């Protein structure tokens, strides 16, 4: 057989033992929370789709104030299947953020961040931030009205940080205002800087996951009192299930992209008012909605400065949770951190829903 001959040929030249060992040894624990193990792989799959469709889009896209909108229009109307490629890129981005959130919060609630997996968690949170930045930077590239104002507000929020804010804002915008220079800059960030960072951190993340194996929730561990758990081999049992999920997702993506092609909207016009009902991408809506409720002044401080600081502290808490949660590091139950996690999820869900149902006009 060809495969055997090729492996033999390779084996003569390089040592395939680590790969073989990995394939034979990797197992997935089977218990009532096993279903959550699928979401990391799903995020990875969608990321692969983003890379592929993103590369295709670079072939026609032009990152400048004069040409960005027109080039996306060209992709959508003139390039064969251009609408499909762009639509899949947009839909897949959104699904990827969703899968990543489910992955991150399931890991949190199962306390898989606890010793010895602190670094896996930290790399994961860094990837979380990068993916959100991917979404934010990609949103501007079509240079339409919504993306223009989203970027204006988003970069202005970065500008609210004490001391470094103004510099940060100019760095992001590539000047004092959101202009064509911002498009070029976001393009560079979106297709070069973030992918490079992602590659490095993702490699570390996956390496750590393979090195340490799958974490089992402490509650399951305790229930088994040291008895070995049931497990299924990763290859082929779990991988086939993964593949099945990916296949279904691919179908779903194609259907979404074909039935609801991603809209292009109106070209950005810095001299038009912000349109009524303006709203960021759904994964930023909870922050956006919170900003609406924070009053202009809280004591001597501007409300939005405090809001921005609050969200940064929340992010910092999530980043450092393995080092704060001393109890689960020892394998003991840690209800406080569980409740905080549920609280954060509830906050995000409630404010997201509010963002869609609360009336837009006062």
């Amino acid at each position, binding site marked *: 057989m060809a495969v055997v001959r090729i492996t033999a040929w390779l084996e003569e030249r390089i040592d395939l033992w680590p790969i073989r060992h990995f394939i034979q040894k990797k197992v997935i624990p089977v218990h009532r929370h096993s279903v959550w193990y699928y979401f990391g792989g799903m995020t990875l799959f969608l990321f692969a789709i983003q890379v592929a469709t993103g590369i295709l889009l670079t072939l026609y896209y032009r990152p400048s104030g004069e040409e960005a909108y027109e080039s996306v229009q060209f992709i959508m109307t003139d390039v064969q299947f251009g609408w499909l490629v762009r639509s899949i890129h947009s839909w897949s981005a959104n699904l990827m953020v969703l899968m990543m959130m489910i992955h991150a919060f399931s890991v949190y609630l199962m306390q898989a961040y606890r010793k010895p997996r602190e670094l896996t968690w930290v790399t994961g949170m860094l990837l979380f931030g990068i993916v959100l930045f991917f979404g934010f930077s990609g949103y501007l590239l079509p240079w339409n009205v919504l993306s223009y104002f989203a970027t204006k507000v988003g970069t202005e929020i970065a500008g609210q940080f004490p001391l470094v804010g103004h510099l940060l804002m100019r760095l992001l915008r590539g000047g004092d205002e959101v202009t064509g220079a911002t498009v070029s800059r976001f393009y560079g960030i979106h297709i070069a800087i973030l992918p490079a960072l992602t590659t490095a951190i993702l490699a570390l993340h996956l390496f750590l996951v393979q090195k340490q194996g799958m974490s089992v929730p402490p509650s399951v561990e305790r229930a088994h009192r040291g008895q070995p758990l049931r497990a299924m081999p990763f290859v082929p049992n779990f991988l086939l299930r993964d593949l099945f999920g990916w296949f279904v997702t691919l179908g779903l993506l194609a259907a979404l992209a074909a039935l609801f092609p991603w809209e292009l909207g109106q070209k950005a016009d810095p001299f038009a*008012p912000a349109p009524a009902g303006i709203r960021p991408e759904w994964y930023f809506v909870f922050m956006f909605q919170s900003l*609406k409720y924070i009053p*202009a002044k809280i004591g001597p401080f501007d409300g939005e400065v405090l809001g921005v600081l609050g969200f940064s502290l929340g992010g910092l808490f999530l980043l450092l949770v393995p080092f704060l949660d001393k109890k689960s590091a020892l394998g003991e139950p840690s209800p406080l951190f569980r409740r905080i996690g549920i609280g954060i999820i509830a906050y995000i869900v409630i404010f997201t829903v509010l963002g869609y149902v609360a009336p837009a*006009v006062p």
Partner: protein
Amino acid sequence: MVVHEQGEQVDHGRRMVNWLLGSSLGVLFVSIFYPIVKYLIPPKLAEPTTVSVTLPWKLAELKANSGRIFRFKSLPGILVKTSGGDLRAFSAVCTHLQCTVQYREDRQDIWCACHNGVYDLNGKNISGPPPRPLEALKLNVRGDQIIVMKG
């Protein structure tokens, strides 16, 4: 005693080498990253010096109870004609997070759609998150021409 002194000399020499190596590496990194960091900071563009703009509309064209956005240097401004016939001009940049505001005929106020900020017709922030009033611009009407100035 002699051996001990030699040892001290060796120690001293090694520390010297370490220090030299360390600091030259430091200098190398700084000399690489300094220009990169500076490169990333966008240059300041010279602001045009004219601070007055003649609006593209004639006074007679403007209806009472209406608002229009105009280009004031590189930023949007808003011109409002109140239902009483008064003219007012402000920077149209919301003081909250910089969205562009609009005049609402139905409620006769100035509204920012981004986070529901509302200003009255003196530019004062009256509800929602904006922390400061809109920046007022000076108006000068010469015949049928409207001229807007900063001041």
